[in-house]
């Protein structure tokens, strides 16, 4: 400790003590509710900063690295803990109570979880979500892969095509949801009126509205997945393809026997991306149909929200109907399903990759 000047020691300890005192004052004002000036937040923040300054100048060589490690990690970890970890733990806890967003009156155990399975609308939402996910994994990957093949062949203006196909991905789901709502209800109806004499918008009927959501989703997402497939296809060495064509392989054979097996890791990535993003789909669902669409009879009841997917169902339950604990329980189930499905998918793909 001899190599540190007395001023540094004093200023370091002084800052740390001052910081602690400031934070304690802030805490006291907050707890005792005597903060007439509204300065408690500022006291806490300034106290914390002053304390860190003192800590930074702490007279030590041996522990300096440790102090820096702590100071570098703290801000992000603090934000992460407050926004993700604490709400997650609280949320799981709240799902067993009758929490209304502000206070808890009773612990109800598994009641919320049992109740959701008695709700035909919720079961319908789960089924629709699964259907949507399956359709999307297949269609988005298929379309994206074909576009990628197109964009890796020798064409003029490839740069333009790639950029054009990717473009929809830049726009947020809310905005493009409304754009497509316009297209379905104003533009497509012009064609259907002329062709089938049907004036109704696709979005007004559950089945066609569901197809509409899938169309929009492919339009938005295929360009992005295509880019990843292009990167994958470019890693297939040219001499392998040349060798196969000398051996007399047709382009179709080259595609199925060489290209697809060689980009198996890319397929895994793309399947995972389409799976998780389709599962969490919310923005397009909200803006395009807001879940509407009648189902005449499902489990003995009439449903009005035929295109409502899980994420939107959770949102409506909690925010629109003000059933916070019930919505939270649904969200916890949503989390479990998502985690389970993604783990299974990764496991399965890894096995397949080894086999190929």
């Amino acid at each position: 400790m001899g190599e540190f000047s007395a001023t540094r020691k004093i200023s370091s300890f002084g800052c740390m003590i001052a910081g602690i005192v400031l934070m304690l004052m802030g805490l006291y004002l907050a707890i005792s509710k005597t903060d007439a000036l509204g300065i408690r937040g500022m006291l806490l923040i300034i106290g914390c900063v002053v304390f860190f300054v003192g800590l930074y100048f702490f007279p030590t060589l041996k522990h300096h690295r440790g102090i820096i490690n702590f100071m570098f990690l703290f801000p992000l970890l603090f934000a992460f803990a407050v926004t993700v970890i604490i709400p997650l733990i609280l949320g799981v806890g709240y799902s067993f109570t009758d929490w209304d967003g502000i206070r808890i009156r009773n612990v109800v155990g598994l009641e919320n979880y049992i109740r959701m399975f008695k709700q035909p609308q919720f079961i319908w939402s789960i089924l629709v979500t699964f259907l949507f996910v399956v359709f999307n994994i297949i269609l988005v990957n298929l379309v994206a892969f074909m576009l990628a093949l197109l964009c890796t062949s020798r064409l003029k203006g490839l740069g333009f095509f790639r950029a054009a196909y990717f473009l929809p991905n830049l726009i947020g789901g809310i905005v493009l949801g409304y754009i497509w709502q316009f297209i379905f209800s104003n533009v497509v109806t012009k064609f259907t009126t002329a062709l089938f004499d049907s004036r109704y918008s696709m979005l007004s009927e559950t089945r066609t509205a569901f197809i509409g959501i899938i169309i929009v989703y492919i339009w938005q997402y295929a360009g992005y997945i295509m880019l990843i497939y292009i990167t994958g296809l470019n890693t297939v060495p040219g001499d392998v393809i040349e060798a196969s064509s000398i051996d007399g392989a047709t382009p179709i054979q080259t595609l199925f026997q060489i290209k697809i097996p060689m980009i198996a890791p890319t397929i895994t990535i793309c399947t995972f991306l389409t799976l998780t993003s389709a599962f969490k789909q919310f923005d397009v669902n909200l803006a395009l149909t807001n879940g509407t669409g009648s189902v005449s009879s499902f489990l003995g009841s009439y449903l009005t929200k035929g295109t409502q997917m899980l994420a939107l169902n959770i949102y409506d339950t909690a925010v629109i109907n003000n059933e916070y604990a019930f919505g939270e329980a649904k969200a916890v189930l949503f989390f479990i399903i998502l985690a389970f499905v993604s783990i299974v998918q990764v496991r399965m793909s890894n096995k397949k990759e080894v086999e190929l």
Partner: protein
Amino acid sequence: MKIKEKTSRVVIKTVVALLVAVYVLFPFFLVVINSCKTTNDITANPIGLNGVSISNLITNLSDVINNTHFMFWSAFGCSVIITVLSLVLLALLGAMAAWVICRNKTKWSVVIYFTFIASMIIPFQVVMLPLISTFRDVGKFIGISMLQSIPGIIFAYLGFGGAMTVFILNGFIKGIPMELEEAASIDGCSPEQTFFIVILPLLKPVITTVTILNGMWIWNDYLLPSMMLGQNGVVKTLPVAVQAFVGSYVKQWNLILAAALLAIVPILILFFIAQKQIMEGMIEGAVKG
């Protein structure tokens, strides 16, 4: 030997590529032409160019910009401030955290790293409800509002974006030789100097990648700002403003599409400037994530 494709096949492929491009770009075209029309012209013919005029566009845009639900300039300003500050802080604090996690192979750094990775699968719906109540309580406790405030939402983006940022940066830092840091420390650099002078400049390409990924997400995000800021608050981001605006009107498509146009144009301009970086960044993020 080069494989020569038949010209007929090239022609077919080009035609297909063009048709797909037309299909993909057609909605954008519709947005542009219909925000230059009046409502009557849109209902009469949404595809044709009848009634398209610049003066209609100006009327529609000024109606939207001055609308009390939309308040374009304020929403645009909020979106820019929130996105830019979140990105800068995420890049800096993420790099600092990733460096510490990567360079200290102790038990706690491994635990933190795996907690970050595991947290990436958590859907926002699980945390959003308790998040709002936590932020409300914290805000009341410290006397600084965390909801309906720009610092609050930036703080939330730090928490939600942190995991992926650290994950991608960590992968890159692993590849930087340790000798570089040892040399710096022999030359008398303290750990923090080593980080800011030696490591941080080397991270430029990967910081570009995470900034693009986070930027696309934060700029377009709807659910988090709508929950935290509310539909009718003073602080609004562009997607929330679009939703609030559309919700308040009965299908005035000329105005809705003009609003969509206003929301799209900034990001299109950015895309035309940095097209290569954005596309590469999105690919890299996906492949590593």
